[in-house]
């Protein structure tokens, strides 16, 4: 307690502070020295591909896993020493619907309310209130296994906020949802933050982090490789991205080299063998880049210039795209 307090002064403004969190599975360092300082009252996003260590980090902060190294304060309490205090103020919604699928929505929420200390009567009232608020009133008496994916997610989040937590962990809250259900979950998250809850969510979707998170930590191979607001991350990469579509794929290497030499920019080759992507900070250079290519006789069929997306941020930070690795590795639990 004393030792960790020395290393990590407590702060009233931070929901989570962590220093040097490590989790090792066999030879693999699933989480490899993560530092965090997450202010209260915001949505904080962990962005990264499968197997990056997002879930493992969340499970450590939610008291489910013991870190192999590092210290953390969650809501001002020492992780590992004051887990009970932490548990009474956090809530976790796991990657898979963590409710009893054989029970009805009403029964699930009533059970959770009773476990949170409500009397039988109050528990039922609270359950109905939540079902109504989440648009699940009509499904209240149906077994959860008969719910659609979006409804499942909603009941799952509802179960996490029976007593409004100060800190809510959402592990990939929208993976596998259709766009409409995803928007519903986003609305719920925004509203929770509105009522004072700090939300820490993980996502593989760049758009989700962009839309929802006030600050983002990009995680790859157990390490945070970038941190900031969405626009800070984009700015760090450069003000814009030039995407050139070549007529002949065999020109790609030559075009790339040319841009690198003349415009002094970094060039990426995406999956499309006829396209070249370059980071360009000054929009004035775009015209120059196009005319350089024309002078060398490299025919282009199309080009576009725009602000970088988070996908491009990820690409420039890691050298590979976020989705590319998603299938290759499995998330270590």
């Amino acid at each position, binding site marked *: 307690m004393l030792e960790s307090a020395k290393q990590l002064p407590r702060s009233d403004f931070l929901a989570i502070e962590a220093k040097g969190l490590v989790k090792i599975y066999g030879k693999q360092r699933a989480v490899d020295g993560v530092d965090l300082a997450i202010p209260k009252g915001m949505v904080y996003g962990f962005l990264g591909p499968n197997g990056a260590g997002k879930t493992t980090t969340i499970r450590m902060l939610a008291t*489910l896993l013991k870190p192999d190294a590092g210290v953390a304060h969650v809501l001002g309490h020492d992780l590992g020493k004051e887990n009970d205090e932490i548990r009474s103020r956090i809530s976790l919604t796991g990657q898979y619907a*963590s409710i009893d699928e*054989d029970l009805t929505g009403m029964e699930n929420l009533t059970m959770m309310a*009773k476990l949170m200390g409500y009397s039988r009567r109050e528990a039922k009232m609270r359950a109905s209130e939540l079902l109504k608020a989440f648009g699940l009133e009509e499904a209240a008496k149906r077994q959860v296994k008969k719910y*659609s994916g979006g409804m499942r997610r909603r009941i799952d989040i509802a179960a*996490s906020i029976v*007593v*409004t937590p100060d800190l809510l962990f959402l592990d990939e809250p929208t993976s596998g949802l259709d766009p409409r259900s995803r928007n519903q979950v986003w609305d*719920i998250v925004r509203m929770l933050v509105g*009522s004072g809850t700090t939300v820490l969510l993980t996502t593989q979707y760049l758009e989700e982090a962009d839309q929802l998170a006030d600050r983002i930590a990009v995680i790859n191979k157990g390490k945070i490789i970038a941190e900031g607001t969405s626009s800070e991350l984009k700015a760090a990469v450069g003000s814009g991205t030039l995407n050139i579509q070549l007529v002949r794929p065999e020109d790609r290497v030559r075009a790339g080299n040319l841009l690198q030499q003349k415009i002094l920019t970094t060039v990426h080759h995406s999956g499309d063998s006829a396209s070249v992507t370059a980071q360009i900070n000054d929009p004035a250079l775009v015209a120059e880049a196009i005319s350089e290519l024309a002078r060398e006789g490299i025919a282009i069929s199309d080009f576009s210039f725009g602000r970088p997306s988070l996908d491009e941020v990820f690409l420039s930070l890691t050298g590979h795209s976020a989705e590319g690795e998603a299938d290759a590795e499995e998330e270590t639990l």
Partner: protein
Amino acid sequence: MTDYIEQDASRTVEFPMSETIASSKRPARPTVLATIGAFATRALLRIKHVPEQMFDVTLFPVIFLLMFTYLFGGAIAGSTAEYLQFLLPGILVMTVSQITMYTGIDLNNDIRKGIFDRFRTLPIWLPAALIGALLVDVIRYSIASIIMIGLGLLLGFRPEGGFIGVMGALVLILIFSFSLSWIWTALGLIVRSEKSLMMLSFLVMMPLTFISNVFVDPSTLPSWLQGFVSINPISILATAVRGFMHGTVTAEQIIWVLVVSVILTAIFAPFTMYLYRNKE
């Protein structure tokens, strides 16, 4: 189902969400009893929603009882009616001890489905989750027992110990089964899948139930096997249950069952709780 989803889709999202979503209060932590009660209610609701569970666990022993009585009764005891008096208490012991593994399977499912994680992040007294479930399992065991005894009576089972004797036997079976369940909860926390747990329990329970005095009088066995049969917990329980039902039970027989139960609980309950808290 389908029409609901369509109806749901036509609605343009926005729930009447407002400040109602935030809880108006933060109740005090539930008492241990209330926590156990909440978990027990959950287990009861599961029986209500998945009654097939009960069906599975009773069908197999019913078949066993009929098969053994009519197939081997004549050969083993001279007559089927005679054999039934010997076999029924034993089959009852076998049935209930075998269905104890469902406790482990339920727990294993909870882990795989993630609900286990939710319980572990609650500020509750954790053993309540297991105790609540185990208490309801005792109800499951009772129902299975009543079905078996009922069938036995129909087939001609006549317990000389009378109603009191049968009840005494039942209580003994329930105490033993509650204790045995802890083995399966511990294994349920260790093994990865439901399938491997079933396989494992089969490997343990098969020899334990067959190399016992459930089906035959051990005096016909080779002496080295008799040694195992006499210390087999299933035999110890079967002996006492048989004694209760036929009115010949001794204090020593009862005490041995209680000793075995206490030992099982003392080893496997803390072990389960250790695994439960430290599961990664």
